């Protein structure tokens, strides 16, 4: 780099010029750094500012929600708007349904998908690429096209408008991700350790439980949280597949255009809040989860 030019013997004038050029470059780099930090802050504000706005509005008293013009520095803090939302008819039930659906989805997709992920990671077998391709290609299919025929089937099977129908649908959506994510997690567990366990007399099953699983656990937990968020947020299938047993997004969407502003506000904040925490918890895994899967 620049050091090569510095070490070369050169005429004094050329030397001075080189120093000047280097200083100019250093100045430019400093300026570039400054601009980068400015950009970083601006982009962060773009993400955070709307969250700030809905938070201070959602935690103001109910009549202050209609105040105009609004003040950027919040006046009184109040949980009144939130309580109004939680007490509204159907909200607690929908909240419970959302949690149930997300948990069932998480369990289903891990139980069904993780073995396939393990197989992709550890075995070379005929049909491996074909399977990967099938799993990858499922992403091209919109939720819309699955929900409508599944609604018809679920009515026939008698599980329409239940937590189960939504969870099954969400599992179908999450499964491809689970397979790909778990496969990349298992790939990152050194195979040598597993083989050492096998030579030391473990059966493949105990080697998996005692050696692979503990090492894969943090990644698997991150993947499950991601599945939970996917299900927690999904609204199209949920609103198509339910009538009374709504999940929270489905309930809010179905009632949205008839509901008062405080209700919408609190609902928006309520759906937003968990994701702040979840993304924080899995922040170290985001690049691994998404980056690798997208390839």
């Amino acid at each position, binding site marked *: 780099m620049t050091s090569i030019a510095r070490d070369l013997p050169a005429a004094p004038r050329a030397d001075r010029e080189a120093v000047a050029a280097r200083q100019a470059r250093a100045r430019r780099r400093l300026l570039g750094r400054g601009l980068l930090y400015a950009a970083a802050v601006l982009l962060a504000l773009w993400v955070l500012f709307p969250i700030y706005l809905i938070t201070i509005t959602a935690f103001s008293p109910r009549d202050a929600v209609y105040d105009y013009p609004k003040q950027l520095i919040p006046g009184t803090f109040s949980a009144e708007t939130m309580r109004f939302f939680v007490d509204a008819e159907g909200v607690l039930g929908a909240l419970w349904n959302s949690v149930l659906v997300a948990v069932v989805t998480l369990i289903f997709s891990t139980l069904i998908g993780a073995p396939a992920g393990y197989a992709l990671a550890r075995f070379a077998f005929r049909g491996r690429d074909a399977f990967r391709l099938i799993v990858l290609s499922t992403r091209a299919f*919109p939720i819309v096209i699955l929900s409508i025929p599944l609604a018809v089937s679920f009515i026939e099977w008698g599980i329409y408008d239940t937590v189960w129908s939504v969870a099954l649908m969400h599992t179908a959506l999450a499964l491809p991700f689970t397979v790909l994510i778990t496969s990349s997690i298992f790939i990152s567990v050194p195979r040598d350790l597993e083989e050492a366990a096998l030579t030391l007399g473990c059966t493949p099953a105990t080697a998996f439980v005692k050696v692979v699983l503990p090492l894969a656990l943090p990644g698997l937990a991150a993947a499950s949280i991601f599945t939970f968020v996917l299900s927690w947020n999904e609204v199209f299938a949920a609103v198509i597949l339910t009538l009374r047993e709504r999940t929270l997004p489905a309930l809010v969407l179905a009632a949205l255009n008839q509901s008062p502003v405080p209700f919408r506000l609190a609902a928006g904040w309520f759906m937003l809040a968990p994701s702040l925490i979840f993304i924080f918890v899995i922040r170290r895994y985001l690049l691994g989860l998404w980056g690798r899967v997208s390839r």
Partner: protein
Amino acid sequence: MKGQRLGWAPYALLLPSLAFLAVFFAAPMVQAFGLAFQNDAGNWSLESWRTMFADAQFREALVTTLVLIVILIPVQFVLAMAMALVINARLKWSGFWLYIYAIPLGISELAAGIIWFVIFTQQGWLNSILQGLGILDRPYIFLNYQNPAWLIFAVVLAEAWRATSIIMIILVAGLQGIPRDFFEAADVFGATSWQKVRRVILPMLRPSVQVALILRTILAFQAFAVVIALAGGGLTVLSSEAYRWYSDYRNSHVAAAYAGFILMLSVVSTVLFLWLLPVREEQQG
């Protein structure tokens, strides 16, 4: 592990996934085509497609969906690229910046729609701020049925705000795959930052860009809750028409035709991106 005694093991491990996908993915897909190409009596017909194409809302939904995508995708790419470059520049607290930019990844379309509704509504933040700055002297009704341009603008902002992080993550992962030597080589030759982006980063990122474009476009064709939250009935997109035909008119045939149409557009856009941005063999991850 080839030729091991457990030759059947991988297949046994795949079986649950395959079975589940067959029942809850492949079968509904076939059924969807059945629904779309059959009438109520169960005979093959193009009736639902004719109904869909003749529907007054169809054209509007299609145009809105396409306009949204055409505006959104470039905006999101520029934003996501800016975020990715900031992350890749290894500033201090780079984990912090990444977390902030990734937050919207966990936010649903519906929540994002509501957040921007609070900003754009008549007694909302945008009016408060603009009036505070003296730009407006009384609140302007942005979200007005007679004003589709503002409705589209609001939806674009909300979607750009929410769904840029997924592109950003894919681009950052791609950037990290570029060997540092390339940047150092560019430095040696005195490349400016812009030249580095143009000549090193963009060509090397092509596989990531392709994946992100395909994924984002497919998701954008399904935009739904954000439109309802911001525009109510003032704007319609293809997915909300599918929802309306299923829920309000109880006609799963026309709803399936809409879904099939969305699928068709998704496939066409995927092929288009694969064709426009060919990725060389050796670049595939």
